[in-house]
């Protein structure tokens, strides 16, 4: 064997060219490996930051109180008429809670540190009195009994047990004093303050700036679920039907080419542009209500359609022509060939595209800001279909609005909301994988 110069070369000794080629391959492998490594590192940092900040949102400190519901104070008439009982405001209930708290400290022999009643109440969430009042008004027969009531601790006390608030930071804090925190510590030592799973975080509506402890994702989860329902019901049939028409039935001419280019372009349009479109079309022109899941669902449908159409067309295209020929050859009509043979084979791809589109829609916040879903919504939307028109929030928008608030307790809540959002996405992807497996014949 000889090289271009005519010299004999040995197989045992790589020549310069081979060495250079092998070196190039090694360099490329190294670059690929470092790219993957960088990606994994970024993911680890992201997850650990979100989990580190957000996991504590799923824990909540609370104080278990035994409250005698005195008829004289709550229902003087004795008729248990909620309309009359509503005259007693949260101030009245607050006094009941305050007494119960004092009694509990005395009974357990915990020194109250000479704190004033108002400071004592500062240990509890401002939401506690309203909670108690709601419970009593919902069930007037409770009056006259002794109720065991779990009152949420104040956000600062909660933060103290999670390490966010320290005695030192409390000195400069207008909302809490070191003395209050020391009392909270004594109460915890006596077993009066407990920490448990924070169901309220998943069910409560949003709360005001001053009550981070009672802020929850209930309305946002409902709003997001309603919107996903609308997106799924609208975009899957419309998207699949449009793809089947364009791919299998439409004549190939300049018009269908134009449509194809426009669909590809629509998939790349920034989502905020869809928000402006929705604002102009659905709210200003059609007069649909602001902040409503129906509008959010419609705009997310518009956004998801191109993704679904592109994915569906690609998977229809990948079905071998032989299958269509075979079906037509035995005398199936075009529709039968599509629905009996082509569509089942394309199903895994269609489902993957749909779930990807839905996942993108679930995490979308920009267009929702423009249609007013960022508003503070305290009331749960009704059940569908009426609920589609009620104001609601959405998970990504809730994250956005919580990160804007001053209290660090909301930063924890925002990370917690991100975890919930990611769990939803994981669930959707898992569903996609399971559906794929079911539709994917192994032949």
């Amino acid at each position, binding site marked *: 064997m000889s090289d271009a110069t005519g010299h004999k070369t040995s197989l045992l000794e790589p020549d310069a060219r081979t060495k250079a080629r092998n070196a190039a391959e090694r360099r490329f492998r190294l670059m690929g490996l470092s790219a993957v490594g960088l990606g994994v590192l970024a993911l680890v940092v992201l997850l650990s930051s979100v989990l580190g900040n957000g996991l504590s949102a799923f824990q909540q400190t609370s104080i278990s109180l035994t409250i005698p519901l005195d008829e004289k104070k709550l229902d003087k008439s004795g008729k248990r008429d909620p309309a009359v009982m509503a005259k007693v405001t949260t101030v009245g209930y607050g006094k009941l809670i305050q007494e119960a708290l004092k009694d509990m400290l005395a009974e357990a022999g915990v020194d109250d540190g000479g704190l004033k009643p108002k400071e004592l109440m500062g240990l509890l969430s401002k939401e506690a009195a309203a909670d108690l009042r709601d419970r009593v008004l919902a069930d007037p027969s409770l009056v006259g009994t002794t109720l065991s009531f779990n009152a949420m601790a104040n956000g600062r006390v909660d933060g103290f047990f999670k390490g966010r608030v320290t005695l030192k930071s409390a000195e400069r804090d207008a909302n809490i004093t070191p003395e209050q925190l020391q009392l909270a510590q004594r109460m915890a030592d006596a077993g009066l303050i407990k920490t448990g799973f924070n169901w309220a975080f998943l069910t409560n509506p949003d709360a005001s700036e001053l009550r981070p402890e009672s802020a929850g994702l209930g309305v946002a989860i409902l709003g997001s679920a309603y919107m996903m329902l609308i997106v799924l019901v609208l975009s899957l049939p419309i998207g699949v039907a449009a793809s089947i028409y364009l791919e299998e039935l439409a004549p190939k001419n300049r018009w269908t080419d134009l449509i194809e280019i426009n669909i590809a372009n629509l998939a790349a349009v920034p989502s905020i542009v869809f928000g402006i479109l929705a604002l102009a079309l659905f709210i200003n022109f059609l007069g649909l209500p602001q902040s409503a899941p129906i509008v959010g669902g419609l705009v997310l449908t518009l956004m998801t359609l191109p993704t679904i159409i592109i994915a569906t067309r690609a998977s229809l295209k990948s079905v071998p022509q032989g299958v269509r020929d075979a079906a037509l*050859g*035995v*005398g199936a009509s075009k529709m039968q060939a599509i629905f*009996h*043979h082509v569509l089942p084979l394309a199903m895994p791809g269609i489902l993957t595209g749909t779930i990807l589109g839905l996942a993108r829609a679930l995490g979308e916040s920009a267009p929702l800001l423009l249609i007013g879903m960022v508003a503070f919504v305290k009331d749960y939307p009704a059940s569908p279909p009426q609920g589609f028109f009620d104001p609601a929030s959405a998970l990504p928008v809730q994250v956005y609005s919580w990160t804007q608030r001053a209290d660090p307790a909301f930063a924890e809540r925002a990370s917690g909301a991100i975890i919930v959002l990611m769990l939803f996405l994981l669930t959707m992807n898992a569903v996609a994988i399971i559906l794929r497996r079911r539709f994917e014949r192994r032949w």
Partner: protein
Amino acid sequence: MNDMRLTERAVTEKAKMSARGVQVHYGTNHALKDVDVDILDKTVTAFIGPSGCGKSTFLRCLNRMNDTVASARVTGKIEMDGQDIYDPRVDPVQLRAKVGMVFQKPNPFPKSIYDNVAYGPKIHGLTRTKAELDEVVESSLRKAALWNEVKDRLAAPGTGLSGGQQQRLCIARAVATSPEVLLMDEPCSALDPIATAQVEELIDELRAQFSVVIVTHSMQQAARVSQRTAFFHLGSLVEYGETGTIFTSPRDPRTESYITGRIG
């Protein structure tokens, strides 16, 4: 072998399908020029010729599969039992139930063997009960000489069979709709010699029930299975006649060149 068939042939001289002046254009490409052919009933007709000569194009005209090609334009007249199959009143779906087709590449549906064969009868409503359908499936698989190999695994996927078995499954699928004409587009080009022999034997048996039109690249195959042969060259029908005559004393010098291997 052909000489033996010369005697059998005389029974059927009735034309099942007849084509007159058929022209096919793909866009600006003139793929088929002025073809006149009579397909006889209960006869095997072979189309031979070099690649791109238009024989497959003509075959696909016979069951209007060319309708699915957007750029294809077919003119001329093709009649089946005296009825124009390109008449606007004809639904190609109904035509294809009568004119079955087997493709070059075995293309069973990604379903079970049973469902592959049962699909045609099902969509055409040929059977009323499950028992009838079972019967049709069995007899079709028997006709395709596949029954003994698959009778114990009818629920197994059709795509899991070997290439030759898949092609026979496709033949069974085409036979199941009881067609009057069976078109075969190079059915053995993807098969080994043993599977080819099985399919050829099958074609000979199927001839008893309907006419078979087969496109093939192998002149030996044409000589073995067919009674009539058409030679296509550059989009034109050069010569059409009894297989024995075409191979022993062709009239056209181009036919002679092709069968002796000088052009192609």
